């Protein structure tokens, strides 16, 4: 277990380093950054001044190692547009994105677990087919469009929920639902498959032979084992949701990290863009490791003898 964790940590570190390199390359793709920062009306003198001010006149490798060195100490540089520390900007926006991601995950789990269990218990019935259909529909739903439709229906016509902004918890319901849609199909399918497998296993026959109640058989004995892969995927899905929240934050005008990145892309504010890419990647890697740990908690066999 311990050597396994160490290996995971090394891989995680390597992944982060690779993403860092890629993020750096990504922002240099457009060629001369100084020109794009300065804008179309800048004179050559302006461009030179910018190049000097941001250290863009140094060799690329020097810039790269400078960035890496600073990032390792938590210093992600300075935003051109916001004139603020990038780390401060991200820290300020992160709560919104995290709230959104967690809301989405909770909604997704609240929907998928019962649906998956129901479909498994009623395998091959009309109900099962309905659940699978729901999963298919969810998979085909364009999230930004669903967001707009909810705004029109729940927001404007029914007036149940606020349309945009971050004032109260209600503001997170609609975006949460939309975000959840991207995770519901996978989680439902996995729950269903896991429950079907568990319900056919020998230990469930034992549980029935012990005369346990149906609830205990389903929820204690079967679900516990079916949940192991679901938990792992749920953590990974949360990572994808945080990465994908950029679209939804834009639709609902939620000023989270995704929105920040979107603004920065428009402004050629490359320190922010590369920092957000890096931070989201690191969060994803951390989540996959968390998933491994939770698996070890749920599955005693992984803890070793």
């Amino acid at each position, binding site marked *: 277990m311990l050597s396994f964790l160490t290996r995971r940590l090394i891989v995680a570190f390597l992944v982060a380093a690779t993403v860092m390199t890629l993020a750096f390359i990504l922002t240099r793709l457009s060629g001369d950054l100084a020109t794009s920062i300065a804008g179309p009306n800048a004179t050559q003198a302006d461009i030179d001044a910018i190049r000097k001010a941001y250290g863009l006149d140094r060799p690329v490798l020097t810039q790269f190692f400078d960035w890496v060195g600073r990032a390792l100490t938590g210093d992600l540089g300075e935003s051109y547009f916001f004139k603020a520390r990038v780390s401060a900007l991200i820290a300020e926006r992160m709560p919104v994105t995290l709230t959104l991601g967690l809301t989405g995950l909770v909604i997704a789990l609240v929907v998928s677990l019962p649906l998956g269990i129901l479909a498994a218990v009623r395998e091959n019935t009309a109900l099962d087919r309905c659940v699978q259909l729901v999963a298919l529909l969810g998979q085909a739903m364009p999230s930004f469009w669903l967001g707009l439709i909810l705004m029109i229906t729940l927001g404007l016509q029914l007036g149940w929920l606020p349309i945009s902004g971050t004032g109260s918890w209600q503001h997170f319901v609609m975006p949460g639902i939309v975000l959840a849609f991207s995770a519901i199909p996978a989680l439902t399918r996995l729950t269903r498959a896991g429950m079907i497998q568990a319900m056919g296993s020998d*230990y469930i026959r034992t549980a029935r032979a*012990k*005369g346990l109640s*149906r609830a205990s058989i389903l929820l204690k004995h079967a679900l*516990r*084992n079916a949940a192991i892969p679901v938990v792992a995927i749920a953590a990974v899905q949360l990572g994808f949701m945080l990465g994908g929240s950029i679209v939804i934050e834009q639709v609902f005008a939620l000023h989270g990290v995704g929105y920040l990145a979107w603004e920065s892309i428009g402004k050629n504010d490359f320190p922010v863009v590369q920092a957000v890419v890096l931070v989201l990647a690191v969060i994803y890697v951390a989540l996959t490791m968390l998933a491994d740990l939770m698996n070890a908690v749920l*599955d*005693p*066999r992984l803890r070793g003898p």
Partner: protein
Amino acid sequence: MSALLEVEQLEVGFGSRTSAVRGTSLTVERGETHCLVGESGCGKSVTALAVMNLLARGGHRRAKRLSFQGEDLLKLDDNGMARLRGNAMAMIFQEPMTSLNPAYTVGSQMTEVLRRHKGSSQRVATDRAADLLARVGITAPGLRLGQFPHQLSGGLRQRVMIAMALMCDPQLLIADEPTTALDVTVQAQILRLLAELQRDLGLGMLLITHDLGIVARVATRVSVMYAGEVVESAATAQLFADPKHPYTQGLLRCVPVPGKQRQDEPLGSIPGTVPRVGPGFEGCAFRERCSFADATCAHQIPRKTASPGHDYLCRLPAPVKALT
């Protein structure tokens, strides 16, 4: 007083095609060990599972009579059955490696039976579990209670299963080939344990096995199954002394009996395999492998009584002298 378990004309099918059990009848009296023997695939496990109403998805049972302590099991709903299972009637399975839930400790899986059926507190249940673990020969029961199934060997897991089955003092214990998956030394220990427990606790036991050596040692009665039917049933001594059905005779010939066997005499075996019989099957299922079979064997065979408590399913009028 009615018998502990009475099964009459039990039929089990899976889907519409296979009939795994075709009219099995057997009776288990209080405090006796009834052995059910037969080769692999003849429907022993399915019979036991049908009695417990634990058939896998798609399995359906039908019977003329299925009663436990005089109570009609066929009339019980799921809840009623659940109240009996693990309580008055318990079962041990063929697969000790996979029969325990990998996610919970031995202690948690054992105590939940008592808590469910007797409403005991966790403390009382834990004490009882520890006692029983000691009773089935597990040292350091306190330690084992906190362990997970994957930390135990197959033999230990089967002992845990046995202890778990005994939690609520059942009257009937169904043991489905409890030793098949274990290595030989452990097999003997587990069987000795079961026989001992049966005697000490006065259990009625339905022991499924295909090892006639075991039968000779522990059984009060024996029923021999073939292709979903009980082809012969008798008290143990009688069956060994005077087997009537050619299949039983063949089975007995496959077992080396010390003293009776000459050094150079080859051990017998029955040629061929068990046929798959469908719902419309008529006549004796053993006829293809039987050296006494003729055309009449393809018709309905009447059940005959050789002596009180000894009946068999064969058209042959006279006992065949097969064991010399």
